[in-house]
């Protein structure tokens, strides 16, 4: 089942912070975060695993609430290069299939 991302779009000025949320109605094993710029391939940002292990990007942080089946991606002191569409992908227990949400379009302006 496809995870739900919010907001669908957000506009920030440089230096502002943003939070992108990802929620699922099914029990999750892992949450993956990717950023995709227009016409380019998705780029890996972060993996959060059930049990708390986190593998990711040094300038971006994320949380995984296992009870609520939710994850949040935190972008602090945004830069112009942060612009793009952010996707969360989720896997359930016993399933290798990564199911992506519809994405959150982030635009950072000077």
């Amino acid at each position, binding site marked *: 089942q496809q995870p739900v991302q919010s907001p669908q779009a957000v506009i920030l000025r440089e230096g502002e912070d943003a939070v992108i949320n990802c929620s699922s109605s099914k029990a999750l094993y892992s949450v*993956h975060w990717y950023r995709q710029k227009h016409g380019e391939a998705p780029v890996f940002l972060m*993996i959060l695993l059930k049990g708390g292990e986190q593998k990711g990007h040094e300038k971006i942080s994320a949380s995984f609430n296992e009870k609520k089946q939710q994850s949040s991606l935190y972008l602090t002191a945004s830069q112009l290069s942060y612009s793009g569409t952010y996707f969360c992908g989720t896997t359930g227990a016993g*399933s290798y299939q*990564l199911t992506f949400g*519809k994405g959150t379009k982030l635009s950072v302006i000077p």
Partner: protein
Amino acid sequence: EAGVAQSPRYKIIEKRQSVAFWCNPISGHATLYWYQQILGQGPKLLIQFQNNGVVDDSQLPKDRFSAERLKGVDSTLKIQPAKLEDSAVYLCASSLDSEQPQHFGDGTRLSIL
């Protein structure tokens, strides 16, 4: 390290024709994925290989789509015959295993006329 290589970058065909895409994963990556990304949506998994075996092809339209990964390295994805709704970007990704980050290629943009 070299990234995931895909070809061609663009392809335009008429409906009912056939088309094939090629992917060369990062060296040493056992897991290979093919995704379909329709404009404005997230990637949708079509098929996942572990070495040369299929792990998941539950969302692959098997009446028209086929994929293979010979010798557990390169992979090809074929559509025959193509339909208008197949217009999309086809992304190939690879990872060390199914719990590791996936690295995506630049994709093939397919347009069906």
